[in-house]
């Protein structure tokens, strides 16, 4: 990932875009932050936020024409937030003195401003604050221009006077009763001053000799407010159609002119990096669904404005516009307490770091890669793709920590070892029109279902149904091990070609996705589509009652496979079940916690994901992926596998069964292969390793601990085998138990045990990855 790619990805997360009110405001008053402060009763901070953006807060808080109102998202639920009234309230109720103004050292350049209305005075104020010497020429005997058109009730003269005092403070010179173009010509202004801002309200007759358009109006560049004379800028009401005055736009013009004049006098570009000035449309998306409508807070004191309490109430109506669409639906994104824009930056930094702590490893490895974020993102940003890419880079750099993925990768290698992997044509036929690929997890979780389904397919389908038992390689792909994946998958492709390229029937949605992506030349079909188009076996699983509603948990890898989701629902309907749709279903379904190897990288998060998912409905669930079923059931939810309803519950229990542990999962796969080899193909089963014959006695309590520690019976058997063969073990003088260790690959396993009547009682086992250098020495 390079800087450019990073920038593009970051830009797609819109959480940091300004809310609509701020973007629509010509001077970008941060109304959201102001309302947040008022809602906390902090009027002083609110006033500070407001004053930061406007030069004459008293005036503006009474006469602003509020372009924010039309775009306020609260407008969709009860009416726009009364921003101007809140501005007025924060000035009224702010406690504490005036902020001390800081003036930079004076500059030797002079600026003339013609027109003492809001626009001219804003330009004068901003330029004086930058250190320029500014003179304002006003044709009337007082400053304020069209401000006096407002009623005195709305805008008392004292408020105008108080606000305009700010001009004195910054040292602006005021020349009253001087009409530009008559009492002082533009030529003399241009020769006496370094730049001129014309804000006369109305264009003087004759146009002072500046270039005019076809309608006889000054030619003014809307971006810089420059005229045909490079020293002269013009703006304010003179730019608006007659009768369309806008106090806030006049201020914005004054501010824009001040920026242009400052740049002009500093001889830098008038146009570079100015896109944020003036009103624009924000890209921020804010979902108002489910927001309870609330009408605007009434003002009990009328024109005097909000009381403190009323202002707080009104400020609380602000919905604090933000996006967070993905964070709302994804426990992973939520659990790291920020949002994708920040995450992407953290991930980038993590990949770029040469020396130091890599804080984002867990962030990168915890994502399920399920793609729900992309579905809900207004800009289709997919954090899964970012995390997957990051994992690949980490593996490439040799920076992928071994512990998160080592165990599932070893499990994959076991599935693809001679002990479990199998590829055969249908017994008794050389034709192979179809190939059933049940997937490693169904074989591990419910081997009986694999047998029955294969039998059913052989009966139903003509032309020969081959069988391939193994893992599709998804764990390698998820963990960023591209090379390992490619090696694994090429074995499958070779065998598929050898079997005359049959159509592949997939029981696992992840396998389906892997085959569809990496073997596009193959015809693939989901088992559910096949079953949907045949007569159904229907040996209902234990406890399942026809007519009752089942909530369907769609596998996240079927997100864009509507036909699979439909087939599943058809089968359920044909079996006589009602279907309940979960709030997140179909293309918005969520992962069960297994995808992307989340469970192995962040067990606590995966448990929360499961917990959140199983609380979405009271109904029993039905899943059509072995891992989804086992994970949801591990949280205590009654969850059927769709095959439970077709072929009956497996021997180890009904929808409440927790699913086999790691050791049994491996044994199930190996036994399945041997059973099928013997029963269907009449072949000799694969022999056992010597250590596998060691019989262990393990209490239920210890079994649970071993599961959490990811220690398999075969690990324990190997330790005991080594210890008993070599005699290398410790003995307790207290209990006579033995303690021995063995390091078959990356992990060292320790086992405390005792021999008893042809078996070994296991008391404890633990492991570590750190390598201990042993051997005789001083």
């Amino acid at each position: 990932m390079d800087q450019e790619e990073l920038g593009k990805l970051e830009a797609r997360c819109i959480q940091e875009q300004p809310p609509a009110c701020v973007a629509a405001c010509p001077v970008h008053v941060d109304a959201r932050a102001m309302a947040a402060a008022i809602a906390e009763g902090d009027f002083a901070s609110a006033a500070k936020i407001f004053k930061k953006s406007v030069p004459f807060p008293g005036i503006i808080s009474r006469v602003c024409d509020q372009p924010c109102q039309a775009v306020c998202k609260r407008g969709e639920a009860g009416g726009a937030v009364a921003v101007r009234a809140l501005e007025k309230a924060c000035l009224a109720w702010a406690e504490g003195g005036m902020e001390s103004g800081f003036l930079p050292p004076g500059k030797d350049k002079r600026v003339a401003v013609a027109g003492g209305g809001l626009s001219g005075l804003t330009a004068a104020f901003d330029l004086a604050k930058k250190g320029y010497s500014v003179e304002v020429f006003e044709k009337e005997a007082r400053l304020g221009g069209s401000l006096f058109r407002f009623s005195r009730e709305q805008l008392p003269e004292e408020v105008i006077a108080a606000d305009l005092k700010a001009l004195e403070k910054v040292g602006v010179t005021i020349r009253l009763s001087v009409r530009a173009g008559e009492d002082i010509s533009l030529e003399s202004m241009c020769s006496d001053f370094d730049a001129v801002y014309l804000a006369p309200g109305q264009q003087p007759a004759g146009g002072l000799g500046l270039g005019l358009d076809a309608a006889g109006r000054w030619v003014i560049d809307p971006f810089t407010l420059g005229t045909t004379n490079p020293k002269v800028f013009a703006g304010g009401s003179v730019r608006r159609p007659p009768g369309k005055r806008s106090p806030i736009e006049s201020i914005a013009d004054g501010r824009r002119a001040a920026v242009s004049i400052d740049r002009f006098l500093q001889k830098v570009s008038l146009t570079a990096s100015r896109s944020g000035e003036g009103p624009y449309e924000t890209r921020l998306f804010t979902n108002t669904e489910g927001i309870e409508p609330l009408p605007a807070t009434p003002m009990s004191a009328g024109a005097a404005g909000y009381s403190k309490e009323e202002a707080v109430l009104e400020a609380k109506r602000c919905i604090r516009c933000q996006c967070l669409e993905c964070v709302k639906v994804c426990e992973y994104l939520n659990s790291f307490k920020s949002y994708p824009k920040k995450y992407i930056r953290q991930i980038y930094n993590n990949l770029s770091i040469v020396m130091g702590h890599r804080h984002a490893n867990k962030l990168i490895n915890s994502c399920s890669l399920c793609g729900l974020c992309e579905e809900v993102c207004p800009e289709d940003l997919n954090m899964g793709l970012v995390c997957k890419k990051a994992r690949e880079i980490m593996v490439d750099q040799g920076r992928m920590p071994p512990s998160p993925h080592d165990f599932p990768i070893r499990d994959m290698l076991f599935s693809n070892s001679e002990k479990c992997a199998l590829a055969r044509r249908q017994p008794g036929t050389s034709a192979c029109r179809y190939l059933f690929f049940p997937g490693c997890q169904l074989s591990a979780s419910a081997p009986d279902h694999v047998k029955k389904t294969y039998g059913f397919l052989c009966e139903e389908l003509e032309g020969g149904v081959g069988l391939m038992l193994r893992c599709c390689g998804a764990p390698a792909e998820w963990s960023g091990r591209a090379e390992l994946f490619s090696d694994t998958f090429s074995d499958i492709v070779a065998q598929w070609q050898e079997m005359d390229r049959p159509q592949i029937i997939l029981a696992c949605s992840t396998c389906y996705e892997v085959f569809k992506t990496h073997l596009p030349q193959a015809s693939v079909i989901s088992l559910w589509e096949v079953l949907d188009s045949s007569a159904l076996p229907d040996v209902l699983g234990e406890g399942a009652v026809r007519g009752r509603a089942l909530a369907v948990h769609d596998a996240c890898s079927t997100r864009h496979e509507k036909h699979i989701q439909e087939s599943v629902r058809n089968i359920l309907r044909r079996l006589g079940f009602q279907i309940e749709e979960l709030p997140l279903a179909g293309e918005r379904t969520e992962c069960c916690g297994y995808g992307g190897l989340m469970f192995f990288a962040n067990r606590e998060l995966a448990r929360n994901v499961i917990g959140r998912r199983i609380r979405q409905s009271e109904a029993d669930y039905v899943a059509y992926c072995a891992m989804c079923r086992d994970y949801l059931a591990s949280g205590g939810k009654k969850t059927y596998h769709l095959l439970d309803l077709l072929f009956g519950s497996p021997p180890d229990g009904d929808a409440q069964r927790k699913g086999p542990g790691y050791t049994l999962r491996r044994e199930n796969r190996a036994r399945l292969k041997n059973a099928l080899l013997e029963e269907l193909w009449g072949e000799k089963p694969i022999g056992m390793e010597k250590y596998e014959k060691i019989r262990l006695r393990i209490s239920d309590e210890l079994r649970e601990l071993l599961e959490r520690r990811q220690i398999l019976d075969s690990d324990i058997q190997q330790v005991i085998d080594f210890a008993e063969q070599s005699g290398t073990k410790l003995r307790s003088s207290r209990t006579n138990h033995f303690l021995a260790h063995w390091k078959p690959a990356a992990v060292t396993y320790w086992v405390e045990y005792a021999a008893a009547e042809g078996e070994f009682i296991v008391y404890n086992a633990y492991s570590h990855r750190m390598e201990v250098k042993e051997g005789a020495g001083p």
Partner: protein
Amino acid sequence: MKQKDATPAESEWLCSKCGLPLEIGKVDVGYLGSVFPVDLYRCSQCGQVFVPEDIAQGKMAEVEKLLEDK
């Protein structure tokens, strides 16, 4: 990483092969290219080392995590 003083649970182990009680000694423990000398119980004759459960699941696991993220 320093092993705490001998507790009954730790000093109860003998090397089964050599029949000798274990003694504290410096053992090199390494991970991902980093190596630290650590005080661990070991057999003074054959060098068999004892890593107690609390160290494997505690301090060692912490250091492993630290080194993996380094």
